[in-house]
């Protein structure tokens, strides 16, 4: 069995999740505190990937990043980045695709913290930044875990977006879900089954751990 597609899948999921974790926290923080009129617009945009067919997302990425268009040619000429049919392109697309899975749990967690706890920290002279790091985030560990795991799992399960923007280049963009499709097309059911089983087992284990931890079966783990 060729492990390359699986390794690529997990590399993509790992990189995406790490970057998402960093960018989703400020977004979730702003959304949880904002009373602005444009808040619903931002929320709708963040949630779009939940309902939009991945092919739509992939199609627009393809159009936007294409070197034939303004944005794509600017990227390649000025920054030397080629996002189409490349691993960095997959990462960028995955960031958008999995954004709601990271933002939603964190936003819900932050909104659930009682206002007086945050205010108590301010009264004690702690800045907003210090309050976020030392008071707010440590309290929502289960939400952070949920966000990390869902984003990771969702990126592992990506297909349509990858197919549109990444294509099927072994070692670069051929992730496991594409490989499965490829093997089925070629009638190699055994190979498809091997990939599928691995994905099935791993995603099951990941989700099981989340429910065990967040369901307090592993008492004291987060305390």
């Amino acid at each position, binding site marked *: 069995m060729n492990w390359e597609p699986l390794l690529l899948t997990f590399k993509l999921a790992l990189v995406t999740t790490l970057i998402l974790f960093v960018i989703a926290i400020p977004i979730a923080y702003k959304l949880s505190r904002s009373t602005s009129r444009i808040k619903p617009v931002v929320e709708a945009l963040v949630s779009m990937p939940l309902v939009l067919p991945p092919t739509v997302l992939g199609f627009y990425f393809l159009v936007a990043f294409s070197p034939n268009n303004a944005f794509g040619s600017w990227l390649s000429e000025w920054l030397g980045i080629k996002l189409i049919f490349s691993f960095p392109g997959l990462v960028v697309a995955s960031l958008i695709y999995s954004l709601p899975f990271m933002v939603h749990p964190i936003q819900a967690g932050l909104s659930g913290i*009682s206002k*007086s*706890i945050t*205010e*108590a*920290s*301010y*009264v*004690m*002279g*702690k*800045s907003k930044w210090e309050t976020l790091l*030392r*008071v707010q985030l*440590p*309290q929502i560990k289960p939400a952070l875990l949920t966000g990390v795991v869902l984003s990771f799992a969702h990126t592992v399960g990506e297909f349509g977006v990858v197919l549109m923007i990444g294509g099927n280049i072994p070692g670069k963009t051929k992730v496991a879900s594409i490989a499965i499709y490829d093997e089925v097309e070629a009638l190699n059911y055994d190979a498809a089954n091997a990939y599928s089983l691995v994905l099935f087992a791993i995603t099951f284990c990941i989700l099981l751990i989340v429910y065990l931890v967040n369901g307090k079966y592993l008492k004291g783990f987060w*305390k």
Partner: protein
Amino acid sequence: MIQIDLKKSLQGANGAMQLDLNLEIAEGQFVTLYGPSGAGKTSTLRMIAGLMQPDSGKLSVGGAVWFDAESGTNRSVQKRGVGYVFQDYALFPHMTVLENLNFAKAKGASQTLVNQLLELMELGDLQHRKPETLSGGQKQRVALARAVVQKPEILLLDEPLSALDAGIRHKLQGYLKRIHEEFKLTTILISHDVGEIVKLSDYVYHLEAGKVIAHGKPETLFTGQSISGKFKFTGEVLKLEQEEILSVLSILIHTQVVKVVVSHEEAEKLQPGDQVLVVSKAFNPLVYKLENG
């Protein structure tokens, strides 16, 4: 000296309301804000702490201007450094009692005050526990200790004892008194409990619909007359019984029920549930030494 001259329009449960306050609090005083819900008591504390911005007016503490609408001065909540005890305690759930206290302590401040407070509030045995394992009264002691650890210029207490039952409340009033005597912090308390107010505070402001409608020493304010009794207790009328010549009142003082006789005319003014002040002027009390244990 705290000089408060603040205005703020608030959206209360009973519609819009104009909060308009003008008061002065001497350093080291224990002052209570008393009045019905929605009178603007909590908003007043929040404006002093810097958690809510007044519309206009001026606030100065010990000569330093904390807020002045005219010059645009508004010291941030972080820089005001008041001690604030919230109604729901607001303890950090992921930290132990000791960590809660250390979090509030200024950077580089010595550990002595933390240890002193742990001892004073009898929290030594609980210091490594998480808040969720504590009772309401214990949580409140932690919240109080945590607010004092900051060495604040002002201690603000937003109905700190209202969620507790009578016995524990009585005990915590003792802690509050001890804290105030030990650290001489200028303290502003919000309370509905007349007994508590009389016991703890030097001065009371009675707020209604955003305005001070009465103020004075608590005994004077709540009885309408100046009393110079030797023994004073506050309690709640439990029962009124009409006898032939006199009426018998059963009054709950702290946790004891005491029977007192009053004339029929006096009894007519009272009904069960009333808060009363029981004063005895000249008498010869019997004093028994209590054995330990």
